[in-house]
């Protein structure tokens, strides 16, 4: 039995290591490419470790290819989307959870917007935006990204608010709290794990978004997801080093955020199941 147990453990470890290599390899490739000099990331066969480390690619990506501006554009859009989605989605979720606003089906109807592939409405958005004169503005991208995010916010936050026993809010009412005070003192703290997880997802969705960023922007707004395919050496050959450098820069904040808020996210996504 002991040997079999040891063998199983060994097998499990081997499997996990295999999966880890499979998932981490692209990330590793991204990191080393970002720091390889120009001649090295183009060579064949490829090297698995930079012969010497350089920051040239970051300069190329951020300055010459205007990556810094692209990151700023993406940041404005992601932050704006986060604020609008949470600002509109949270009260809606509370209302649906607490007062059954819109009856049983409203939350699901809202969620069904998410079932639609974003490519479907994008042509309509393009036409509407050009007619309204808001094409190629931050506002437009924040608007359409929020439209996709709000159902997600409502759906997740609704279940969090439903988990808060109403008697807690009633107790606070009787204790003398105003509605705003109840939200601040009880509803938000008790929904905090959900709040953190949903906020993070809202930000990430908008940060990573490509389709709207490509079709609904012109010359003014250049989110990084849009400029990356255009980073070339000369006219055809992608500048892999600059692309990797930029890629590394844009995933860093997300990785750090997710790492820092890990415990909230895990609790957030498994809330109903684990609570007492």
């Amino acid at each position: 039995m002991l040997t079999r147990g040891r063998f199983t453990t060994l097998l499990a470890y081997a499997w996990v290591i295999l999966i880890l290599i499979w998932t981490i390899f692209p990330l590793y490739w991204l990191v080393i490419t970002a720091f390889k000099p120009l001649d090295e990331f183009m060579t064949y066969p490829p090297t698995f470790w930079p012969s010497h480390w350089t920051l040239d690619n970051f300069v190329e990506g951020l300055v010459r290819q205007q990556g810094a501006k692209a990151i700023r554009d993406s940041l404005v859009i992601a932050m704006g989307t986060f604020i609008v989605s949470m600002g509109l989605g949270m009260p809606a979720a509370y209302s649906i959870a607490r007062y059954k606003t819109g009856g049983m089906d409203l939350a699901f109807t809202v969620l069904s917007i998410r079932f639609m592939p974003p490519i479907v409405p994008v042509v309509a958005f393009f036409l509407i935006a050009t007619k309204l004169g808001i094409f190629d503005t931050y506002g437009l991208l924040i608007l359409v990204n929020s439209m996709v995010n709000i159902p997600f916010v409502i759906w997740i936050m609704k279940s969090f608010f439903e988990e808060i026993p109403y008697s807690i809010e009633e107790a606070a009412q009787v204790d003398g709290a105003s509605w705003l005070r109840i939200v601040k003192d009880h509803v938000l703290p008790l929904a905090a794990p959900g709040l953190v997880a949903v906020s993070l997802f809202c930000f990430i969705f908008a940060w990573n978004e490509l389709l709207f960023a490509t079709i609904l922007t012109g010359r003014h707004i250049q989110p990084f997801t849009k400029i990356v395919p255009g980073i070339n050496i000369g006219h055809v050959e992608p500048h892999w080093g600059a692309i990797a450098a930029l890629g590394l820069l844009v995933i860093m904040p997300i990785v750090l955020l997710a790492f820092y808020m890990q415990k909230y996210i895990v609790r957030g996504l498994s809330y109903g199941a684990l609570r007492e």
Partner: protein
Amino acid sequence: MASIRWEHITKDFGTVVAVKDLNLECKDGEFLCLLGPSGCGKTTTLRMTAGLEKPTSGTIYFDEKPINHLSPRERNIAMVFENYALYPHMKVYDNIAYPLRLAKVSKDEIDRKVRRVASLLEIDELLDRFPRQISGGQKQRVGIARALVREPAAFVMDEPLSHLDANLRAYMRAELKRLQKDLGITTVFVTHDQLEAMTMADRVAVMNLGVLQQYGTPLELYGQPANVFVAKFIGEPPMNLIPCEAQEIDGTMHLVREGMDVILSDAWRQKVILQATSNQLLLGARPQHMLIHREGEVQLNGSRNILPGVVYITEPLGTEWLVRVRVGQELVHILSREAHSFELDERVYLEVPAERMFLFDAKTEKRIG
């Protein structure tokens, strides 16, 4: 301090009428129990008093001032919830301090009051813990402490003892009653447990299906139940009710059913003639008041209220015996202090002392007398 008066209170939720035309009063400093089975409207009444529900019609008065329009926080009422409703993300100290913080009481004052009420309820040791780290009985005391700390005009309590185990419940019953007497704060207490109502309350309002059945002191409810519902609800084991028929035979009134013939006194006869809507009656007797005789121990001369029956089962309860006797189709319960060793199916005679007998109209279910 406040007196509370409910005047023509009706509350419906769509098609369901939770409370129907309730008229009730709780005097200043009094302990009022709202008693009834689940769904009788007692909790709805309490919630309307606290301001968590609005009456569909009628007016609630505090000290003769109508308060229907006031929100919960304007009423200066403290509530203890059935599930305690402690704030799970706050420590016990902060739970108790919360109402004071909302009232913008100074920090020192808060600290003084919280510690005083905590020592009163013997939860000083728990102030640093979170609600999830303390037991049910402790949570309940924290709930009471949170209500107490404000020194409110009135307490409303929604079955605060129902989730405690039997020992703790008995202990908290006495504690709560003593606390209420010491503080003299008007208290409205909701329960479905008649024992709680009987032991704790100054006055009890018995409700059923949204309608007030009777309002009085515990002893009034026990001694003079207004109707069959109250008679059955108050007292343990519940009152025996034996259907019978009133018949005039040669100028005397008899209560007759198969195997039973009870001759009524003239005073009872007058009451039955005046108050009964038909000759269908219910003979009521509390198990504690009935006597049980063996064959041959009693003279069947018709001067006493005797019901013949056969022993169904006997159960020793320690100090007393519960004897279940089959009288016709009915099972009648008798509590007896004497040790009995009845055979199963032994023939016995039950006596209902005339002064302990109740009569109810079988149609209206109202008490005659």
